[in-house]
């Protein structure tokens, strides 16, 4: 029953349907949104399998990375919600409950449930871009349809929120990376090209 409900809300969110945003006011809305968000985080985690294999992580490290990635994505969603909330409240004077906005942001991660397909070579990169735009569209549609924020304001709030989010990201990038690596139990990421050249040079020097 819950599975069906999640499926419906997920499908409606992807179609930007007004009905999907009704969960923002329903008692179990947060649970549904969190389930969709966790599914999205796991799908994204699976799509990182390639990066993990390049980094030669063990199965244990992969699971840790998957769980860690979910937590990190959760922090990102919280920050993203905060940024939109600040933009709406401080710059545009809209009074919106943070919890309801958080449910909307969790719902906006619905396209990321299809994130596993970003693993597809070449086309996956385009798919990743499409998913990010799709997420932004759900946020804008939710703000407009459910919170009655005029379209331009909704776009502006999401835009300003995105800008703030990027600034936060830049400020704390090294700390976030360190945290991700700590969760994986590694010192640094393997960059395939550099690693390949390094290996090749080591091999050539040895001869």
């Amino acid at each position, binding site marked *: 029953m819950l599975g069906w409900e999640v499926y419906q809300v997920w499908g409606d969110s992807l179609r930007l349907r007004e009905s999907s945003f009704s969960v923002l006011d329903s008692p179990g809305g947060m649970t549904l949104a969190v389930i969709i968000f966790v599914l999205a985080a796991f799908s994204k985690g699976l799509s990182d399998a*390639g*990066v993990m*294999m*390049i980094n*030669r992580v063990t199965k244990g490290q992969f699971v840790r990375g998957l769980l860690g990635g979910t937590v990190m994505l959760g922090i990102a969603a919280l920050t993203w919600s905060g940024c939109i909330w600040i933009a709406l409240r401080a710059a545009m004077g809209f009074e919106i409950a943070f919890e309801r906005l958080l449910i909307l942001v969790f719902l906006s991660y619905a396209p990321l449930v299809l994130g*596993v*397909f970003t*693993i*597809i*070579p*070449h*086309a*996956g*990169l385009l798919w990743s871009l499409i998913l990010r735009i799709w997420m932004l569209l759900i946020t804008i549609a939710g703000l407009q349809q459910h919170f009655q924020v005029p379209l331009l304001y909704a776009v502006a709030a999401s835009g300003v929120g995105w800008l703030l989010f990027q600034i936060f990201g830049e400020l704390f990038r090294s700390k976030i990376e360190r945290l991700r690596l700590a969760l994986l139990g590694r010192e640094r990421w393997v960059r*395939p*090209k550099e690693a*390949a*050249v390094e*290996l*090749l040079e080591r*091999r*050539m020097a040895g*001869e």
Partner: protein
Amino acid sequence: MSWILAHLEQLSSVVALVLLAFALTAPFEALRWWAQDVDLTLPSLPPKRETPPEPGECYVVYLTGIGGSGESLARREQGFVDRVKERVPDAVMVTDVFPFSVTNNPLTGERPLAWLWSFLHRARLTAKSLLFEFWIGARNVFQVAVCSDPRYGPIFNLGIAREVYESLLRHGYDPRSRAPIFLIGYSGGAQVALGAACYLTRLRSKVVVITVGGVFSSIPGISLAHHLYCLTGSKDRTIHLGPVLFPGRWKLVSGSFWNRALRKGQVTIKELGPMIHSGKGDYFTRSVSLENGTTFADHTADVVAEIVKTTVAEVNPPEDVADSGGDKPR
């Protein structure tokens, strides 16, 4: 036939699902190879030759297109390789690298679905139907995508470069020499040739890439290669996929490897004639001729041989030219 039409929707869904499975699993052959603590142990260098290499010595590596299954070259392609050899007798021809596997493992080699690929390979030879050809092509197209993907490409290309290098050594290449290496890539093999060039250019030899009806992205191999020759046919529509599918080939992206190499004059695009991409009338066809009577196959071989000879002459200038420095007018 009516059954197929009645079930067209279901059949299309099955085909789409299989293609999706191909796409999702495509990077894992290269990734698994890398993740198993990739063994980069290369064969030890061959002993130094007692006699100096022939002045015209060079190595021509032919990488097949997406129709290849790795067992052997198609007859028309083998014919092309033989024709180039006739024209450049000092060239050592290398044809035993399967470009769509990082471990040079043919589709019919040691792999879980070898039985399926063997069946499809045999079936396409006997039935000559696109139905069987399609699956092999689809599988290899996704390997071309792996090669061009910035996430997986560096790993895939390293594996291919290693296999090409090993094959060169087997064919007598001495890394201490400067004998030029020519990587000829047909169709999707062009992408792999450029991928291999990313690493092979670290050798002393000049590495020249020649694409025949090549479909490729903008990757560092384009800039790193000594020169890139793109041989095209005016009726070959497939070659236009590259400039459409890969953003680095768009004029808009002026800083891409492709556009930079074009500006530097490192790329020569040469139209061979009214060739199509594959089938009767393609670059290797003997039964269709140009207006002057030269068959398509001979013309392609002529142009490739000319490129090889010119490059070899640049590397090893004839003695009378090399020694005539003092006689030059001042």
